[in-house]
């Protein structure tokens, strides 16, 4: 089964259903903002959002009411501070209650690896002495059948849908990724359905014998989406907009300002190109 090359709108409409578990992965790098915004535009609801670092994109999706649950390991604005919409959901149930399934990075990485390998659980030496297991029934223990040593265990994560952003795909849907990966490959291979937005669709991928390639037959849909990671970044294409990450702290701090910004730039724009144009207009 080869990947279909689809418009992003159609890919989100067809493959992201209300109530689904959805992982938009990419660790700081290659965060699929365009796909997240399209999910917001299509007013998807009751999603179980999964990401190691929710980042601005989940702050936006949570604030816009898309999420019923969040599986995560670090929920801040990197180098800046809080994610105010995530905080408001947890502290005040605004816009509604958010169920948390909280891990450490190492635990969540183990869970994604288990998911990619279709093992029922992942294990690690972790969580020792912390209060996390007391508040998350998904952190248990398993004994080594050889030494008796006790290890931490976490259930595999297998999202209904994983969405990545990547630098390029070829016309068959093979996807090549360059630079910081995080757990993106494991999240991709753990998914029931994998959607990838890309900066470029090319005739042939650059040679990369041991590079990161997701073969076309594990990808369900590819959407051409230049700038699809902005304000995150795509190594070799554009840098992270660190100034925007700082600015988000102000935008998201209160509900009204947040809603106004989301309406203007996301809900009132038809697609990611228009979103980027509206920001540029703002800046001018």
């Amino acid at each position, binding site marked *: 089964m080869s990947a279909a090359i689809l418009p992003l709108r159609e890919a989100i409409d067809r493959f992201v259903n209300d109530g689904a578990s959805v992982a938009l992965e990419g660790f700081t790098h290659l965060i699929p903002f365009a796909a997240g915004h399209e999910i917001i535009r299509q007013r998807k609801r009751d999603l179980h959002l999964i990401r190691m670092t929710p980042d601005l994109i989940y702050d936006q999706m949570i604030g816009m009411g898309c999420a019923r649950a969040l599986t995560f390991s670090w929920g801040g604005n990197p180098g800046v501070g809080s994610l105010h919409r995530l905080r408001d959901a947890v502290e005040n149930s605004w816009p509604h209650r958010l169920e948390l399934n909280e891990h450490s990075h190492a635990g969540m990485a183990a869970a994604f690896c288990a998911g990619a390998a279709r093992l029922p659980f992942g294990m690690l*030496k972790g969580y020792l002495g912390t209060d996390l297991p007391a508040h998350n029934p998904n952190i248990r223990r398993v004994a080594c059948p050889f030494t008796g040593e006790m290890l931490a265990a976490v259930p595999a994560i297998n999202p209904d849908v994983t969405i990545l952003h990547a630098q390029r795909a070829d016309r068959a849907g093979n996807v090549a990724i360059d630079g910081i990966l995080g757990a993106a490959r494991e999240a991709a291979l753990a998914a029931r359905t994998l959607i990838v937005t890309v900066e470029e669709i090319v005739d042939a991928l650059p040679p990369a014998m041991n590079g990161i390639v997701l073969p076309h037959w594990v990808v369900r849909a590819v959407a051409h989406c230049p700038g699809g990671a902005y304000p995150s*970044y795509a190594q070799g294409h554009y840098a992270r907009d660190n100034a925007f990450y700082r600015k988000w702290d102000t935008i998201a701090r209160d509900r009204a300002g947040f809603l106004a910004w989301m309406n203007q730039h996301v809900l009132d724009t038809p697609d990611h190109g228009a979103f980027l144009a509206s920001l540029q207009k703002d800046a001018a």
Partner: protein
Amino acid sequence: MSACTRDEWMTVAAARLLQNRDVCFVGIGLPSAACNLARLTHAPEIVLIYESGTIGTRPDVMPLSIGDGELAQTAACVVPLPEIFSYYLQAGRVDVGFLGAAQIDRHGNLNSTVIGPYESPSTRLPGAGGAPEIAQHAHQVFVMLRATRRSFVEQLDFCSSAGYLDGHGARARSGATGGGPRAVITDFGMLAPHPQSEELQLVALFDGVTAEEARNAIGWPLQVADRVDSIAPPTAHELDTLRALHARTREAHARPVHLPL
């Protein structure tokens, strides 16, 4: 030496703890500044690992996030994050892990999760991230945290990562492989665990700061070590290097990003 801020002094004091052959697991903010300052001064061969998967990175400007492109571009290699945590950190290959937190207790246990009860927090903090396993596995942990009675507390609201647990060898008995928090660098000086009780005690003060100031900033009755060192102020070279790094960083982070349209 020109007047320096306490943040600068903390950064310099932390940098001085690092050695040329150390492998450091670096966090964002003050730790990142300290590690890169060490690399740019006395420890040019220091190996910096960021949890994003960048190994042996030599950034010219500090990253705002843990995964800025600068880190990847200047790294010896970039590997998937699961490898960083399993094949490097868990495997015991990290000498020094840097951690911050919202709260620390007298045994170096840290809270970066919630203020108030977990189920209905008054303040939801970002969470643990890489900290629980850094705290568990790094050969030694350095904590950087400005001191107030709200941050250095009798009782954590939540334990996100373990220091010495209840002290008196509790950590070693728990099976943790790393050495725990060997130093807490704060804005009056430095605390370190007592060899037996593993309670954090005052071991060093910035030149000119009094033990009284330290005691006032700590939310438990602070013990003072038999010997309290004085931490020399930043040298001109340290301060110039750090300020130049910050200046380059500010300039880079303010640079407009070309939107791909």
